[in-house]
């Protein structure tokens, strides 16, 4: 499943992702200069939190066992079967905020103006999520797990570990992963 990965060491807290998410996904004019003048103000589905120097961009994690899916009484919170991404079907949402309360990350924003819940949907209908496209340091990466492991590898300069088979209970394997040696 393609998701947005975060390299928190690269996040400098510039909040460009917040601006671009709001402009791309929630504004009428789709331009920054127009978006800032709009009423109601465009809402970003990503937030950069944390103290200066340890900031972290946080959007919906599209959990495998999503609490918001279980909490939604109207069936507005759905998962796209093909992409695995959770999203809000805005026509069905009644603004009960059960998802807002149940999300362990606080990633769902209640919109008082439109009376619906707003949540990141990994820009699934777009080529690339707005936040990923706009991040100046490359802290945000869009891809599946393999993409992310490649990013991690490049960052740590080490071997990539792929587990191709899971041991059954009758077999016992001791897997030792040595991350400090190259080319082994």
């Amino acid at each position, binding site marked *: 499943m393609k998701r947005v990965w975060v390299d928190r060491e*690269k*996040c*400098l*807290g*510039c*909040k460009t992702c917040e601006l671009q998410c709001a402009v791309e996904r929630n504004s009428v004019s789709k331009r920054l200069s127009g978006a800032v003048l709009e009423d109601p103000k465009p809402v970003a589905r990503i937030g*950069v*939190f*944390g*103290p*200066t*120097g*340890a*900031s972290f961009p946080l959007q919906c994690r599209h959990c495998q066992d999503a609490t918001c899916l279980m909490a939604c009484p109207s069936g507005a919170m759905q998962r796209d079967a093909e992409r695995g991404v959770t999203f809000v079907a805005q026509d069905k949402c009644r603004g009960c905020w059960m998802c807002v309360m149940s999300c362990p990350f606080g990633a769902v924003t209640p919109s008082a103006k439109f009376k619906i819940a707003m949540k990141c949907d990994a820009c699934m209908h777009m080529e690339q999520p707005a936040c990923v496209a706009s991040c*100046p*340091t*490359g802290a945000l990466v869009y891809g599946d797990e393999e993409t992310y492991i490649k990013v991690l590898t490049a960052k740590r300069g080490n071997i990539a570990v792929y587990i191709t088979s899971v041991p059954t209970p009758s077999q016992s394997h001791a897997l030792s992963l040595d991350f400090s040696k190259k080319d082994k």
Partner: protein
Amino acid sequence: MKDIRKKSFDAATNEMLIKAYRTKTEVIWDRADAAQPQCGFGRMSICCTDCYEGPCRANPFALVRQKTVCGRTQEELVSVHFLKQVSDGAAALVGLAHEFHADLDKGIAQSVYTTKDSMLVPIDYSLRMSEIGQAAAKTLLSISAAKERVYGKTESKVVSANLGVLKADAANVVLVGHIAPHIVQPLINATSKSSVPFNITAMCGCEANGRLPVLTNYDSQELPLLTGAVDLLVIGSQCVMPATASLANARNVAVIAAFSLGNEKKIKEAVQTAADTFLRRRGKDVHIPAALDQIHTGYTAANSKQMLKTLKAASAPGAIKGVVYLGGCGNIANTQDAQMVQTAARLLSAGYLIVTAGCAGAALAKAGMCRPEYVLRDGQKGISGTGISPVLHIGSCHDAGEFLMMARDFQLIGIPAFAVMQEISHNKVLATAIAFASKGINTYIDLGETISIPEISLPGMVLPITDLEQLMPKSADAAAAQ
């Protein structure tokens, strides 16, 4: 607001912060919390908004080094930004000098100014720094001379410090922000003629050469308004937070710009406003923390000459390692005053005398350090018994010219001088640091951990504050001293 008791080293400030929290009054600590996280590009000075082809930023994590649209590299961004901050600080000092009617060459403003349109890093960066530093030094000396013209040759005095200087039964006037002496003195005179008892206080700078009590420093400047005892706020042109003026308005405390008090009529009106406000609130509850410290202040190069003679005679050679100017503003990200007090205590333990001013001076004053009774550790064997205060408070940070003159006198009796600018927030202080360095005084500067100091060579060295560790004693006594 979380962790209120860790916001400031000063108990009175924390007490007022609890009051701010309970009355839901927004103060600088709330705004700083809401601003988190602050942008890392700005913190590291690797962004630029000098022109409209920008704004540009250099990605510090890129494999291929990123340049701005006009072609500056990351290092050049830092250097040029540093230069412009120093230049701006020097311009601020020149502005103060003009306000104080100081005697300054007509060309000096032009010589310190660096326009945003000049995009190249100067070919001789150190020379440009030196020019600005020399101009800033001249400006500081001219400000000291202007003050002497108004007040004459003054002696050092004992005044009170901290929020307890506000009085429940007098009209309290608070002066904030570098106000010209020729405005302060007539104001003091006018209030003494009023039928209502008056209490004039200064925010950090002892505006009247040591005759005004010191309230508090920059970050806590909104808090005196929360006492309910402030009857008039007179604001200067620099170092006044907009929030202070709007908080005063919200609490129906009149705010008067100092420059408008140029004539007697206006001063009389201001005094009347303060008196009326006081009479309206007299008898009602005010919340003034019982925090009062005595500080010995108003030291100048002129009135210290006798003290220096005593020092030379009384102390064993080498007992006093040096004299240190401890300046700086304070940074809201840290516990207020804590680092300055700690640095001062360690320097004193290590055998240095301290000259302090401005917001750093207020920090030390609130900690009770600016008096002879604070001779605390072995490091002061050189001066205990002489009655000399180990920390000499000279007034506002714009009085740093006095230290320039004092440094010369100290050096003549064999005591070397250097400077430490802890937690610099405002450009004036950065410019003062460069002024000191351009006059041969080694200066340690603290701009926060992310900002790197470009390489400059001046007669005195400009060093990061972490280098100060080398001067401190490494023994266990030093750790106990903290």
